[in-house]
């Protein structure tokens, strides 16, 4: 606001309801994963690999040209009527996932360690139908059998590239979803990986859910369960080390009404925090909560798959 005495700082006036991902999102995530790999020692090698994977995703996003891309106005009707324009079911057949995925494996080839090289070889010799099956599992949240579970994060990474590319082509973000549909991504209909509390000037302190697939962020009120909408029995649980220092800027937003939790990442504590990366790095929080046994996890992180046979 400008007036005769100078400029008043702008506050949060009308925070955007839906924020499309940034073209550099994978690079930001890779950087965060790399930093976390040096900080969280027990997960060091795992997070370092995921950092490489995200870096490869960025390379593919920037350099690969998929054979099919939607026309810029293809989603005008969906946007106008408040439908998720990039619905996973609707676009599976059109999206050129296989060349994206092949490009991702090539980009990863240079960086991958010896222990993980067999994964690459296995995926390369797998027929398209096999890859498609894995992709279906990733998109429906089915952890499948342990024997193929190690391949799923790589397939998921390919799908993330394909869908983030689509999200970048949208002429405008979708509208805020109606109240009954705020648990799923307004762009692609996938589940959120975690919440993030923003710090930018126009949305400082505002909470968004971030899509586990296309990284779109959508607004949800603070201090409210993202699963059941209740507000009465929420707790924010986090890990402290022996000196009382928090391990990461990550809390579990646990709900005593539906007994689930979704992680929430206040960027105020660490501006570099990225929901998917910080969710992975705070695995110890999940393990401790599982030990308590009161809450089940609702976050969808396609870089980590756990079955129910354990």
């Amino acid at each position, binding site marked *: 606001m400008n007036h005769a005495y100078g400029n008043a700082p702008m506050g949060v006036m009308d925070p955007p309801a839906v924020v499309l991902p940034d073209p550099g999102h994978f690079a930001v995530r890779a950087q965060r994963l790399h930093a976390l790999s040096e900080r969280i020692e027990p997960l060091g090698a795992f997070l370092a690999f995921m950092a490489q994977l995200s870096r490869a995703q960025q390379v593919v996003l920037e350099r690969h040209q998929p054979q099919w891309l939607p026309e810029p106005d293809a989603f005008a009707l969906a946007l106008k009527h408040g439908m998720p324009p990039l619905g996973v079911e609707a676009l599976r057949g059109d999206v050129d996932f296989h060349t994206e995925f092949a490009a991702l494996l090539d980009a990863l080839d240079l960086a991958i360690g010896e222990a993980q090289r067999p994964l690459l070889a296995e995926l390369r010799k797998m027929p398209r139908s096999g890859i498609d099956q894995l992709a279906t599992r990733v998109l429906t949240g089915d952890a499948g059998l342990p024997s193929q579970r190690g391949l799923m994060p790589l397939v998921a990474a390919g799908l993330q590239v394909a869908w983030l590319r689509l999200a970048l082509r949208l002429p405008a973000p979708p509208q805020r979803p109606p109240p009954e*549909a705020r648990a799923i991504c307004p762009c692609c209909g996938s589940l959120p990986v975690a919440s993030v509390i923003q710090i930018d000037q126009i949305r400082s302190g505002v909470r968004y859910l971030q899509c586990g697939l296309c990284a779109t962020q959508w607004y949800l009120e603070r201090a409210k369960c993202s699963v059941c909408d209740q507000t009465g029995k929420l707790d924010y649980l986090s890990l402290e080390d022996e000196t009382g220092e928090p391990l990461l800027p990550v809390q579990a937003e646990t709900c005593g009404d539906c007994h689930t939790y979704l992680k929430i990442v206040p960027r105020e504590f660490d501006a570099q925090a990225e929901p998917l990366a910080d969710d992975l790095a705070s695995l110890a929080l999940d*393990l401790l909560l599982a030990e308590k046994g009161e809450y089940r996890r609702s976050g969808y992180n396609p870089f980590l*798959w756990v079955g129910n046979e354990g």
Partner: protein
Amino acid sequence: MTLRVTRRQFFKLGAAGMATSSMAMMGFAPEPTVASIRHFKLTGAKITRSNCTYCSVGCGVLIYSRGDAAINNIDDIYHIEGDPDHPVSRGSLCPKGSGLLDYIRSESRLRYPMVREPGSDEWQRITWDDALSRIARHMKDDRDANFVTENQAGHTVNHWTTTGFLAASASSNETAYLTHKMVRSLGMVAFDNQARV
């Protein structure tokens, strides 16, 4: 009833599942992480929505407190910030609102009803029942003594001008309505809400 659109899958991400997780299957040992949880403890916080009490703007605040809600200990409040979802204030607070935590912790904060008897220079603590009874008694006596049913021209007025009423600032429309009903039904003419500080 509207059906909620959800594709939620819930699961326990526990130590038992880690051995067959994608992480283990990719060749990364989950054991160090499983072992590492012994070094951490879970700490909890609560966030409660409220309104700033200072003025009639009624800015939304989020109040952070530690520990168990069952122990409703006011000392547990450790942080207060503007509520970015509040339609009036959108997360902003004025300097007074930003100092709410000090207000809660203030040693001179009024925590219970007190009375200074006529002629005394000391404040004494009384119960809420005492306080309300005494106020009601004063009001009744004053109203009985000073209630005016007719003015000089003989018109019925039924008013009470010797007692006034000052209500709080952070009140809702419903509170304002009830205040109005109560005050006017007694015939009181002078009343205000504390809206300017």
